[in-house]
């Protein structure tokens, strides 16, 4: 079992699965870091994005990787509008309300999808879905390698955006000190909506990366969202770099513990790590000390 023939592919697989986890967590951590709310609708939005990617392929013949571009724009707009016109106004500034609004949104989205598309599982069969790259003894699926590369690029772009642009600086300012930012003339409502839009756009990209190898039905998103919550806490709530590193880490831990403890117990590895980090570094791997 310890032979490199199994160990190396398992670690590589873990990294590639972890990359997609990381991307989903990036959206979540961004929204948490700025708006200080847990977005329960994240999983449902992922499912919605996957359905959009599915129909973009089925109806328009758009390859999921190409669809990622319009989908990012579309979901950014959707996220912006959701925060601006639904979550913000309905929350009345109370965190508990916002929590319940996002939970309600999740239920509405999921059931709307169920009514519209039924419980049917849908997949797309792409010609390159079964292509592999041989790395030593490991066969790496091409779509997963692409996903890995795209996630790294997106994370890098997001990091640069936050560091270098005015909007990025405004987002960080709001995250750090909302009142101060407001007094300096930053439109907090707008920044909130932009952040929510960015978080939702991350989910759209993740959906396009998942579609070539995964399936979609109205509850698919939930399979990813619990793990994303774990990653967000593990990486340090609100930290972009933390989410990326923690995502990759969780992917590898899940893969290895799945291999050695069995898939049913594989999740234990993640949560043991999670508890250990909370015990010894409560602010997360990259979080600021509290």
């Amino acid at each position, binding site marked *: *079992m310890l*032979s490199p*023939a*199994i160990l190396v*592919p*398992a670690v590589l*697989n873990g990294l590639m*699965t972890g990359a997609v986890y990381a991307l989903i967590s990036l959206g979540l951590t961004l929204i948490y870091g700025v708006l200080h709310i847990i977005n329960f609708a994240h999983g449902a939005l992922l499912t919605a994005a996957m359905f959009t990617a599915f129909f973009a392929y089925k109806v328009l013949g758009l390859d999921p990787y190409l669809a990622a571009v319009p989908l990012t724009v579309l979901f950014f707009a959707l996220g912006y509008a959701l925060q601006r016109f639904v979550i913000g106004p309905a929350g009345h500034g109370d965190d508990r309300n916002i929590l319940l609004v996002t939970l309600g949104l999740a239920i509405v989205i999921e*059931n709307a999808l*169920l009514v519209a598309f*039924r*419980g*049917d*599982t849908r*997949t797309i*069969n792409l010609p390159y*879905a*079964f292509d*592999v790259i041989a790395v030593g003894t490991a*066969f790496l*699926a091409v779509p997963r390698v692409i996903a890995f590369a795209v996630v790294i690029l997106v994370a890098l772009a997001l990091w640069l955006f936050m560091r270098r642009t005015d909007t990025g600086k405004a987002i960080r300012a709001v995250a750090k000190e909302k009142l101060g930012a407001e007094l300096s003339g930053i439109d907090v409502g707008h920044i909130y909506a932009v952040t929510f839009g960015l978080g939702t756009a991350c989910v759209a990209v993740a959906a396009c990366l998942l579609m070539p*190898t*995964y*399936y979609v*039905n*109205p*509850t698919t998103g939930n*399979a*990813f969202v619990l793990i994303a919550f774990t990653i967000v806490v593990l990486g340090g709530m609100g930290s972009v770099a933390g989410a990326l590193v923690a995502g990759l880490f969780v992917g590898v831990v899940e*893969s290895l513990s*799945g*291999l050695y403890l*069995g*898939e*049913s117990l*594989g*999740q234990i590895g993640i949560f043991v790590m999670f508890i250990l980090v909370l015990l010894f570094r409560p602010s997360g791997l990259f979080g600021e000390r509290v």
Partner: protein
Amino acid sequence: MSGPYFSRISRRRFLQSTGLGAVAVAGLVGAPVVSRAQAAAVKVGVLHPVSGALSYSGQQGRLGATMAIDDINAAGGIKSLGGAKIEAVLGDAQSTPEGGNAEVEKMNSAEVTAIVGGYASAICLAASQTAARYDLPYIVDVGVVDSIVTRGLKNTFRFGPGFGVIAKTALDSLVNINDQAGKVAKTVVIVHEDSAFGSGLAKLLNAQLPDRGFQVLETIPHPTPTRDFNNVVLQIKAQNPDLVIPANYYNEYVLLARTMQQQRVRPKGVYSVLGGAASSYKFVKEFPEAAQYIMDCNHWFDPKNPKALELKKQVEAKGGFYTYEVYMNYSCVLLLADALERAASADRAKVTAALENSTFAGHVMPYGPTKFVNGQNQGAAPVNTQVLDNDIQVILPAAFASAKAVFPMPPA
């Protein structure tokens, strides 16, 4: 019925109760005028998990049941009841036993004559028990756990086969297929989902495979849902077994088969027992290469029955897939209609008695005439199928076979 109550009655309620003399006032309130006197409709509960985790199967089951009801009504209803139509009272078990129970209560209040459905074993167990309290006949459509029919409930009838019969048939057929191929397969890896269904099956296989000359190299459990099967496939690759036996639900089954294809893992055969996707037209259509040569032991329609083939055409014309939920529910409703016909009554006790004595043969399954012993249809049995050239063929039993098994799989 007091005045205020009558004024609050909903339109739907009103339409449902046309049989109760509402015809008389139909002209006054503008409800559809019933042109001729008609026998009161017989209400039948159609219970499936149409939302939640099992929603796809539940929706397929509902489709089969309602298609049967439409066919019966179009053919003149229940003749011994003066052409009474069957009226479906639809229920959603929400993929939980509690949900199933709640629907049975509602259906009982709606005065249904019998209930058909349930789908999952857990739902069937709970719902039939609740129905028993009201002496309400309950026909189990799928639920394979054997305790469904061993509790001594007089109201519960299972038309399809149970776990014990399925497992025995599966092992007999496996030995048969392997012997014919010159005993090429000796080693097995079992991949199963970790709830009652998959674990139960894995335990049974682990106990019985060694006696039949197979060595189980490894048993790999996984949860539902599992997001990634690369690890499982790596383990299969390391063990290099002759046979892989998967026992899991549709999504995981498809992911496993796709990952095996991707990782170039090609055992001598893939043989499933109640495989989630192994005999699904959907899987074959969407992933023909991953599905090719996969064998299954599962519920299947009688491929030589013209009615079964006609039904297949109808379902496919609607853009649906002809899955076992459809034809099993279709058959169960026909079975009930036959009992109603013979009972010549919508009385629950009389229908139960008629079901007990059923010899119904007009269904679409390869079971022969129905014969219930303690609620279990004795002729019910699964068949063996194999995916061959983008279609699903029956390979065993010989009486229903439409093709010969291709085993071992030819190399890619």
